[in-house]
């Protein structure tokens, strides 16, 4: 024990002299853990909230009865089942809109407390513990979670008013309730949703009996699995974030690895001495491992705390984009379990092991009497570079295989990871080759030294340069993708949102009135009603939209692919058009037959594919008359109107006044476009933030490498100084070296980034969202990022060089005395 203590004392004394090095290990682990746990915090918060949302009413194992197509059904079916002795409990749900600062839509769930299955919990409140009189009476209670309450801008005890002017029951704060959900008594819910006598589903207590025939014809049993629909829809979004988090983690580990490696090299002599003094190998290794553990713990704790702060800072954007994209509600504050904190620290320890294991192993293999030479820049470069190149080659093969045969999101990410890692591993070889070529052209002694010494530095700074390469390439790739997406999306919106005014009536009955009234308005040039049915196609939620035959669609509905006479066939009711992502998911191509509605409805030919960005559900276009013939329950969901610009505002007001429609139901084109683009900019805000953080981490990696290098490089620089090169000039030369290396890295990062961008739009996006985007390159953006990369390295080298320039001649002289 005392041997270990002595060893630890000796080992730790190193850090007194090399504080920066110690700091850099901690920083590396800290940043790696922070970014990774931050992303995980966001993801786990979201998943928790999905689970809470789906478990609001259905206990985990409650089977349910629903009408086909998830339509509402007549309450009489509930009574019928009850009178047959079935213990079912009715639920009605729908959405309510509020004209808060940002138009807000919440999921209203109406429950019937008396018939709830015995063990049911509603947001943590047992069915038996309901305050019945208050809940079902007048005005009743509306249970909301803290986030929803905040979004509504009201206090508990108040009554919120929907944008339709309906008054909710008294709001009651229910801390455990998932965000975006309001729970009221079924009677209040039916009134608020204009669904008197209508139900959405029935919770089943006893799942064993067969349904009576009369009921089975109208309702179907839905097994009691928790509703993972949201999780499925948002899976790719979370995976994207995880991938970014992982990238940042790897970059952070680069820092730690570099610093740990350096520290070991510098302590070879010390370890030799310790061994010579009789400390066993085991004790020495234990000492090193213990030291690593301390670093891991420190970095981990710091990282988890920072990760939490980071996640909290990103959460609003993150929540907003999930809401906008998927309608998924995520709380605006983090509630994380102890488990999450433990995992964060574990990740840090794992990272430290990854970063430090090779160093400890090297120490284990160190011959007892080997010369204690500082090996940091003496590494035999040749075999080392060759080994890395081999590994890179293997990774590139893996990437190729993933591209050729991969058909899932994980393989797409493997492709990305393999590509990035291979490029990083190849970087030193490529730089070495470039510098080698340069060296042959140099004649002057100082330039020759300049290049040769840069080559000499490569092993020491290569890890930092790799980090820079990765971060920059990721920035280029993600930047190109987001910009490209923005451009494609806005172009597509311009085409797709061609009507001047969009009306979303409350229900079909009102929609028919609105349509009839609009038809009498002479100012209107076109009036396009669209009918909608929601169903699941091969397990995927799909919206079927029925449109009338109008020449406007031909010119305005942007199609990716179409067959001849496509619109005519669609109008004839013999053909369908599909959104790109649905076609991919179903594996359908132009000309294939597709059974959109279940038999006996006829199958239809697929005649067109169109982009439908941002829609997590599948989308199908059919003829409106055909849809209404096949499905009596098709809802007239929207009406779009074209009219001269000066008539838009008056018509909107007239519509709102006449049919009591609020702003969210009568929307002008410009507003709709603004909303849509807002959603997308928010979606990428979190991505962009993580991305710049990664670049920052790379900058820190470079800074730390240069800093540790600077301390060691005196031995290299002292002879030059002795030969008459001034200190200031030496500093400039060193700066030039750093800039040269980083500029070369930046130059290499740009094509890599473009390749990455291509992978993102053509491979990852297709797997993640189902749509492929054209690859756009933005020279300005590339230039900006390149400059940013160089600037990062400039900033990173400034301080170490400043120190170098201020070295006292005595320090330089001492180098000669020290070198023995």
């Amino acid at each position, binding site marked *: 024990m005392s041997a270990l203590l002595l060893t630890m004392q000796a080992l730790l004394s190193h850090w007194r002299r090399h504080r920066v090095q110690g700091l850099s290990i901690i920083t590396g682990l800290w940043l790696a853990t922070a970014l990774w746990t931050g992303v995980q915090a966001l993801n786990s918060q979201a998943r928790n909230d999905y689970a809470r949302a789906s478990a609001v009413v259905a206990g985990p194992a409650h089977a349910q009865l629903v009408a086909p197509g998830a339509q509402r059904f007549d309450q009489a079916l509930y*009574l019928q089942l009850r009178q047959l002795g079935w213990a079912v409990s009715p639920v009605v749900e729908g959405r309510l809109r509020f004209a808060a600062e940002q138009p807000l839509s919440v999921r209203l769930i109406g429950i019937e407390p008396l018939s709830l299955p015995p063990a049911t919990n509603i947001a943590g409140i047992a069915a038996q513990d309901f305050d*019945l009189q208050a809940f079902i009476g007048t005005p009743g209670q509306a249970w909301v979670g803290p986030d929803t309450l905040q979004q509504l801008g009201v206090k508990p005890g108040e009554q919120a008013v929907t944008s339709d002017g309906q008054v909710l029951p008294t709001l009651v704060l229910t801390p455990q309730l998932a965000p975006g959900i309001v729970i009221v008594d079924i009677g209040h819910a039916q009134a608020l949703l204009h669904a008197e006598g209508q139900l959405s589903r029935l919770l089943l207590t006893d799942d064993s009996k067969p349904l009576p025939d009369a009921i089975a014809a109208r309702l179907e049993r839905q097994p009691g699995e928790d509703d993972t629909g949201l999780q499925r829809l948002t899976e790719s979004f979370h995976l994207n974030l995880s991938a970014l988090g992982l990238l940042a983690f790897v970059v952070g580990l680069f820092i730690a690895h570099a610093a740990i490696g350096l520290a070991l090299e510098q302590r070879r002599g010390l370890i030799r001495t310790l061994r010579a003094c009789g400390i066993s190998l085991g004790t020495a290794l234990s000492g090193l491992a213990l030291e690593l553990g301390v670093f891991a713990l420190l970095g981990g704790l710091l990282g988890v705390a920072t990760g939490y702060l980071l996640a909290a800072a990103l959460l609003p954007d993150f929540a907003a984009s999930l809401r906008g994209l998927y309608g998924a509600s995520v709380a605006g504050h983090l509630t994380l379990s102890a488990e999450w904190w433990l995992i964060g620290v574990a990740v840090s320890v794992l990272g430290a092991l990854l970063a430090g294991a090779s160093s400890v192993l090297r120490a284990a293999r160190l011959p007892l009497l080997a010369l204690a030479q500082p090996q940091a820049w003496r590494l035999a470069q040749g075999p080392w570079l060759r080994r890395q190149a081999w590994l890179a080659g293997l990774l590139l093969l893996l990437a190729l295989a993933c591209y050729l045969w991969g058909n899932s999101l994980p393989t797409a990410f493997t492709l990305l990871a393999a590509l990035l890692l291979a490029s990083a591993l190849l970087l030193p070889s490529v730089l070495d080759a470039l510098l080698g070529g340069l060296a042959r052209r140099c004649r002057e002694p100082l330039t020759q030294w300049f290049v040769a010494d840069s080559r000499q530095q490569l092993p020491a700074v290569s890890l930092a340069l790799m980090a820079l390469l990765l971060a920059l390439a990721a920035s280029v790739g993600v930047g190109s993708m987001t910009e490209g997406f923005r451009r494609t999306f806005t172009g597509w919106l311009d085409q797709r949102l061609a009507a001047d005014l969009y009306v979303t009536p409350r229900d079909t009955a009102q929609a028919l009135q609105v349509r009839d009234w609009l038809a009498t308005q002479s100012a209107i040039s076109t009036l396009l009603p669209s009918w909608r049915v929601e169903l699941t196609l091969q397990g995927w939620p799909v919206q079927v939209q029925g449109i009338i035959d109008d020449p406007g669609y031909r010119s305005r509905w942007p199609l990716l692919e179409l067959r001849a006479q496509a619109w005519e066939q669609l109008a004839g009711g013999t053909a369908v058009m599909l959104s790109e992502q649905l076609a991919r998911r179903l594996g359908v191509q132009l000309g294939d037959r597709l059974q959109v509605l279940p038999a006996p409805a006829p199958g239809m030919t697929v005649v067109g594919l169109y982009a439908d960005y941002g829609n997590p559900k599948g989308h199908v276009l059919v003829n409106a008359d055909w849809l209404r013939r096949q499905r009596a329950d098709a809802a007239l969901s929207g009406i779009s109107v074209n009219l001269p610009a000066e008539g838009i505002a008056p018509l909107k007001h007239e519509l709102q006044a006449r049919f009591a429609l609020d702003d969210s139901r009568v929307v002008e084109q410009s507003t709709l476009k603004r909303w849509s683009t807002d959603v997308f900019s928010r979606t990428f805000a979190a991505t962009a933030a993580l991305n710049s953080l990664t670049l920052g981490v790379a900058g820190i990696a470079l800074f730390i490498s240069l800093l540790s290098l600077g301390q060691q490089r005196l031995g290299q620089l002292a002879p030059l100084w002795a030969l008459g090169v001034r200190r200031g000039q030496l500093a400039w030369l060193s700066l030039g070296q750093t800039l040269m290396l980083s500029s070369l890295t930046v130059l290499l990062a740009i094509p890599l980034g473009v390749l990455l961008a291509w992978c993102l739009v053509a491979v990852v996006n297709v797997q993640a969202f189902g749509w492929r985007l054209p690859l756009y390159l933005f020279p300005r953006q590339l230039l900006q990022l390149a400059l940013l990369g160089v600037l990062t390295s400039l900033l990173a080298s400034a301080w170490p060089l400043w120190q170098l320039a201020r070295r006292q001649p005595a320090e330089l002289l001492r180098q000669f005395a020290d070198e023995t």
Partner: protein
Amino acid sequence: MKPEAWLLIALALLAGCDPPQPPAKSYAGLGQEAGAFNPVTRNHALVFPRDHAAHNGFRIEWWYVTANLRDSQGREWGAQWTLFRSALRAGPETLGWDSPNLWMGHAALTGPGGHQSGETLARGGIGQAGVQAQPFRAWINDWSLQGSDDIGQLQMSAGGQGFAYRLMLHSSGPLVLHGDQGYSEKSGKGQASYYYSQPFYQVTGEVEHDGQRVAVTGKAWLDREWSSQPLAAGQSGWDWFSLHLDSGAKVMLFRVREDAGPPYRAGTWISATGETQVLSGEQIQLQALAWTTQQNGKQVPTRWRVQLPAQGLDVQVEALEPQAWMNTRFPYWEGPVRISGSVGGRGYLEMTGY
């Protein structure tokens, strides 16, 4: 379910017992609302068949049938069918979920295999439960009590976990009004209900116990009671007897236990032809003889001595199944009893607030 206003009252009238930790606001609510409901007054004539149906102006009401049955092997059974109506607020019944009425059904079957009970709840206004007069029909979910307008002929069915019954009831005597022409006092302080019975049912039908169907015959007793006022403060529970004597006479007795002081007692002596005699407290002697510990650890008296000196009645009343505990949200004891002593007979006993 939280013991909120409606259940408090239901309980108060049914049982008069102390619900577990009653929230103070419920009592406050009761006091405020009591005025809005119809009061129970003396000299109010009951009218049939109208009064067989629900009385929506009143806060609380029940339809209560108990049957003493026997199968071909001579084994004895007891069946209970109860429907409670409770209003959250005064006013008429309305259509839709907004209805003020809440309904609660209790059913039990007591037999050689023990005592089984079930409970079901429903909201008013949507047709899930209710009572109509013409033709008479009282129902909640799949349980029902229905038949002729004069309730002379009824079918009664209910079931729960492991038990069910379908019984036909034919009355062989007139309706019986308790107290003062149906005005039945529950304390010396004016608390009262409207209360009438049909104690003269002959029963045929079948009971089902753990999947075994058994044909039965016997006698049944229907109680109808409605009110707006809870029991007086300090009344902790009650013991209620409905007895079919072998002589053909019937007896209804109850005592409401007071926290302090002697219990409030009252009853009705019903001759074999249906003539009634009001029994006042001093004419009734009730004495608990033996106690049984129930599944929840409560001790309830399951053997009694009942004396009506003026009628020459001195009998022991003993539970057929001492463990006839109603394991419902508001538990109480209710089961068939055997009568022996000056005269034999069968009947039902209900005990609440223990």
